[in-house]
């Protein structure tokens, strides 16, 4: 336990009551005078060209207000996704929108519209596009290459022999467009005692936010007000302004609560901007509520992998070399990243002495992909865990020990440039988890009971978990209230609130006297980072620390000016600035705030630091003169990658006759520096665990190669796990050792919480099946039944879309 007043202590985030009582307002709950309702017509084809739209019957229907097509909107350069399109590249891509007096009238009108589309070739499996003669997902090509020499689309093809050899598990010899390496790979494999080589597949799948995205927008005096479903808050503004062709100062985003985003609502997205354009055309507020089905089209999905990996191990279990090749299934308009991130994760979690990553991100006519919790890191975690176990068996090393041998620590160097990390205690996490889980006893227990067999597995997860350069803003008003301005966004993790507690910690104030300003960019919010990438806790603990420190310094200056003495003579406590050693000489925060207003200048926001973002500048301008302003950009020391790490231990009982298994025990350990909010951390670890369990066995995209239609357009079909698919108790813990580059020692954890889970599950399944590695997610019951009964799987190697 630490001595902090707020860090490491539970609290009730202020939006809890609204969520429990139903008073919390989500995007679709907002109304504006004269508001109309929009619906979108989407492409029934995986790839095509709109040749004619007949909307005359719809336009004449009662209640219909207007129709918006791609021709009403500014062109968007691919691979950026358009709001509406005349060349759809996936089933479900929006082509036009109808606004009406209510949703039903809009739906009725949509049903009367006839859109003629000329079909174009399409691909729903990257290998079908990559093979010579295969279709490209876009007319521009099947790969978008980013390079210093010039980015753009290309058509990358492999020979049929190269595809066949890849499917056969051999090292891919086809062209890659992304490559990095470090160390002497050849020597690493030469030094290896055991080499394991595996082709693998991780299927993509939907984000499945409980709240399908809704946006409502209207214009007033050139400013666009958008009520949207968003993970982030301030971070949405630049992208939204760009989509709306206005300056950032002319966009207000209201987003008080969000029903899940999981990476799909990090930044401004086309369906958020669409109602604003429609509103501009109609001169009325427009709300667009995407249906559950449409959320599966436009709501983003995890990138799928078809890959090959070769790992060399020394006799002591040390990873000497890793060679990784990944074909990414990118959907139609992403530019890749999961593959290389997977390579980064391997370089950190298993710390190979040498490594090479090669990748080719291939476009497909499937739902657009984006970052999903642990994008890349979690896919590869699922594949690596059974490989580590296979090596351990061949080397006769305990599966825990082989992970400890390779565990990341403070001196570990990572990624392509082999740079430093801020801190890492993976070994401590493994030891803590092993103790809670009782690893040795569970490992050595009798395994077989009739047709039931026990399997135990260990998983490790990683994601970079922090950044810098964002701003913090606090304000103390003459009524004594402490306003903590959070532009983080309310994704549902409560980190928007928990990170403000670092400001309260610095200010040594009563939490009950604090007001978190949030929910609307009109609430004078600072430039805050995206609420994603496991980074909020690290990044905004720092930003709030900086702002609060600025406020404390200003209060000391005011006290010294008012009461005499030097600034260093003063300290703060109990919402007073007092003279050290002379506690009767003090000013209350309220009095200091009043004095700040009288003094003006930087004290009350009339001036501000040059280096803060324009969004923060405007926030300060708007609240100038209302109190004492603490504001600053986080320029604290940050050297190296900030790792969020987690480990999991799972025990399953697998039924060899049904292919089903029960999860008997699960322990997840966070290694995220100092624990900031225990309940929030436990919720992250448990939620991540459940998600990993779904990825391991249930969740997957399925597209029919005949027509490009997705089979998964609902919760049932997507296989999101239920209570009865998860253990009744998920135990969690935390290493709780501080990171030296965080003022209170905290790092993020969101994504590794899932990666360790899926890895523990794939490892446990392999363990139950005498080490058989499927090298695939999900590992569904049918696959296990086929394996146990000696039947071949129903899909060919590296095939996706097997359902």
């Amino acid at each position, binding site marked *: 336990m630490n001595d902090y007043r707020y860090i490491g202590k539970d609290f009730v985030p202020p939006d809890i009551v609204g969520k429990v009582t139903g008073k919390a307002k989500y995007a679709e709950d907002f109304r504006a005078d004269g508001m109309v309702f929009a*619906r*979108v*017509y*989407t*492409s*029934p084809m995986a790839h095509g060209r709109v040749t004619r739209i007949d909307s005359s019957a719809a336009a004449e229907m009662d209640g219909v207000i207007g129709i918006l097509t791609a021709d009403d909107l500014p062109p968007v350069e691919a691979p950026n996704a358009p709001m509406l399109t005349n060349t759809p590249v996936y*089933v*479900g891509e929006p082509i036009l929108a109808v606004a009406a007096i209510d*949703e*039903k009238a809009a*739906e009725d009108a*949509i*049903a009367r*519209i006839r859109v003629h589309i000329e079909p174009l070739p399409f691909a729903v499996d990257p290998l079908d596009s990559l093979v010579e003669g295969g279709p490209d997902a876009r007319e521009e090509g099947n790969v978008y290459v980013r390079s210093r020499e010039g980015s753009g689309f290309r058509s990358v093809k492999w020979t049929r022999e190269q595809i066949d050899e890849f499917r056969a598990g051999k090292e891919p010899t086809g062209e890659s467009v992304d490559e990095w390496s470090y160390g002497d790979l050849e020597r690493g494999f030469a030094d290896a005692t055991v080499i394991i080589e595996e082709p693998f597949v991780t299927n993509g799948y939907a984000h499945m936010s409980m709240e399908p995205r809704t946006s409502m927008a209207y214009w007033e005096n050139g400013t666009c007000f958008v009520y949207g479903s968003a993970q982030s808050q301030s971070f949405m503004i630049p992208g939204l302004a760009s989509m709306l062709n206005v300056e950032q100062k002319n966009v207000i985003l209201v987003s008080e609560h969000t029903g899940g985003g999981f990476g799909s609502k990090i930044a401004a997205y086309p369906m958020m901007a669409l109602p604003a354009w429609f509103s501009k055309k109609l001169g009325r507020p427009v709300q667009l509520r995407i*249906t*559950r*089905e*449409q959320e599966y089209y436009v709501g983003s999905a995890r990138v799928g992998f078809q890959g090959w990996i070769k790992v060399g191990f020394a006799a002591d279990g040390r990873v000497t070399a890793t060679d990784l090749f990944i074909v990414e299934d990118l959907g139609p308009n992403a530019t890749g990243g999961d593959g290389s991130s997977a390579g980064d994760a391997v370089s950190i979690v298993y710390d190979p002495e040498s490594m090479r990553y090669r990748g080719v991100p291939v476009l497909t006519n499937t739902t657009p992909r984006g970052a999903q919790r642990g994008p890349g890191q979690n896919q590869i975690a699922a594949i690596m865990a059974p490989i580590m176990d296979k090596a351990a068996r061949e080397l006769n090393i305990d599966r825990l020990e082989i992970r400890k041998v390779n565990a990341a620590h403070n001196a570990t160097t990572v990624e392509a440039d082999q740079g430093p990390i801020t801190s890492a205690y993976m070994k401590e996490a493994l030891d803590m988890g092993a103790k809670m889980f009782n690893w040795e006893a569970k490992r050595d227990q009798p395994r077989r009971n009739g*047709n039931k067999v026990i399997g135990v597995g260990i998983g490790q997860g990683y994601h970079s978990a922090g950044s810098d350069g964002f701003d913090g803003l606090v304000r103390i008003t003459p009524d004594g209230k402490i306003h903590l301005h959070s532009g983080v966004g309310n994704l549902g993790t409560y980190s928007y609130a928990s990170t403000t507690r670092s400001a309260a910690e610095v200010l040594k104030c009563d939490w009950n006297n604090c007001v978190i300003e949030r929910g609307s960019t009109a609430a004078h919010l600072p430039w805050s980072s995206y609420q994603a990438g496991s980074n909020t806790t690290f990044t905004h603990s720092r930003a709030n620390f900086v702002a609060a420190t600025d406020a404390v310094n200003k209060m000391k200056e005011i006290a010294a000016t008012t009461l005499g003495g030097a600034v260093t003579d003063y300290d703060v406590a109990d919402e007073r600035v007092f003279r050290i050693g002379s506690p009767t000489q003090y000013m209350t925060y309220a009095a200091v705030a009043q004095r700040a207003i009288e003094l003006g200048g930087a004290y009350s926001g009339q001036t501000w630091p040059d280096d803060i973002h324009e969004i923060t500048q405007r926030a300060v301008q708007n609240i100038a003169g209302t109190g004492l302003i603490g504001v600053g950009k986080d320029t604290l020391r940050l050297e190296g990658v900030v790792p969020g790490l987690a480990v999991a231990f799972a025990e399953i009982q697998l039924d060899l*006759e*049904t*292919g*089903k298994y029960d999860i008997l025990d699960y322990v997840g350990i966070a290694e995220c520096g100092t624990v900031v909010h225990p309940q929030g951390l436990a919720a992250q670890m448990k939620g991540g665990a459940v998600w990993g369990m779904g990825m391991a*066995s*249930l969740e997957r995209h*399925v597209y*029919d*190669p*005949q*027509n490009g*239609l997705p*089979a998964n*357009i609902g919760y*049932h*079909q997507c*296989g999101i*796990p*239920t*209570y*009865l*698919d998860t253990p009744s108790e998920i135990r969690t813990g935390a290493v709780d050792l501080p990171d030296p580059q965080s003022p209170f020692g905290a790092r993020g954890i969101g994504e590794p919480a899932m990666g360790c889970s899926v890895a523990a599950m794939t490892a446990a399944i392999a363990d139950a099946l005498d080490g058989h590695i499927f090298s695939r997610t999900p590992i*569904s*019951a*049918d*696959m296990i*039944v*086929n394996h*146990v*009964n000696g*039947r071949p799987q*129903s*899909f060919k190697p590296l095939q996706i*879309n*097997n*359902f």
Partner: protein
Amino acid sequence: MASHDVMPDIELYQPVELSDALDLLERYGDDGWLLGGGQDTYGWLKDRAKHPKAMIDLNGIDSLHGIRELADGLEIGAVTTLVEMIGDPVINRDFGLLSQAAGRVASPQIRNVATLGGNLVQDTRCWYYRRGLSCYRAGGNLCYADSPQGMNREHALFGASRCVAVSPSDTAIALVALEATMVAASLDGERLIPAEKFFAGPDTHITRMTSLDPGEILTAVRVPSKWAGQRFYFEKVADRNVWDFALVSIAAAMAVQGNVINDARFVCGGVACKPHRLRKVERAAVGMTLSEESADTLALLASEGAKPLTYNQFKLPLMENLVRRAVRG
């Protein structure tokens, strides 16, 4: 492509007499839609994949509710909810097979409102059909699932005829095993239909899954006492343990004396468009003792005649294993 999630305009009738419901059904014909718990209905209507003009809500008709003991067994009203069945002491005492099956339907929330009748007459979950594609079952002229590239992991091993969709009902296999009788009412009177004949394969009715004629309403299910208190086994294997449909399921009833099987009914779900009786297993079981050897012998007969599709061959060993487990108990 439109996407809907708002209820369309539709007439709602809430009759309190069966005769009124039958009159309404007669009046609306194909444009009438019978409403039980609504768990299948609202999906179809909100998706606008079906377009009836009127919903005839059966829940207000008292005679369709409840569980009644008969001289020979039980009668269960068609709009009796699954949760009522699960908690009924007589069903639990005599026909645990049925309460087990009802208890594995969907999820607790759905079982609270879903009715027995609705569970029996629900439509198939074939995703192509549910998407609204013009397949055989939807009146078209092809089957998307039974094609070289079709996604057919969840489709049929038996009884395919143009369509390869499977019956999704968990209670159906239990009722076929228990030799239940369905009571169908129409303006012409009442018709009794053996459970096994109640469910229709694509070879007889490709656009519907029961043998109910237009104008008929399923009013009750009668379960004879023949199998009361016998040895039962029910198991449903689905991807998820709740809110999912069977990959393969089994309902078995065995009359056992000493350790010898005197009579047996084995019915599988998820493998055909209707509950699939394992007649060879049933015949072979008679006279066998309950043993691991018998289980193995009978298991091998389970999947005889199966015609697996591209992605559903796993259902063969799964069927065999479920028979094995049913014999083991």
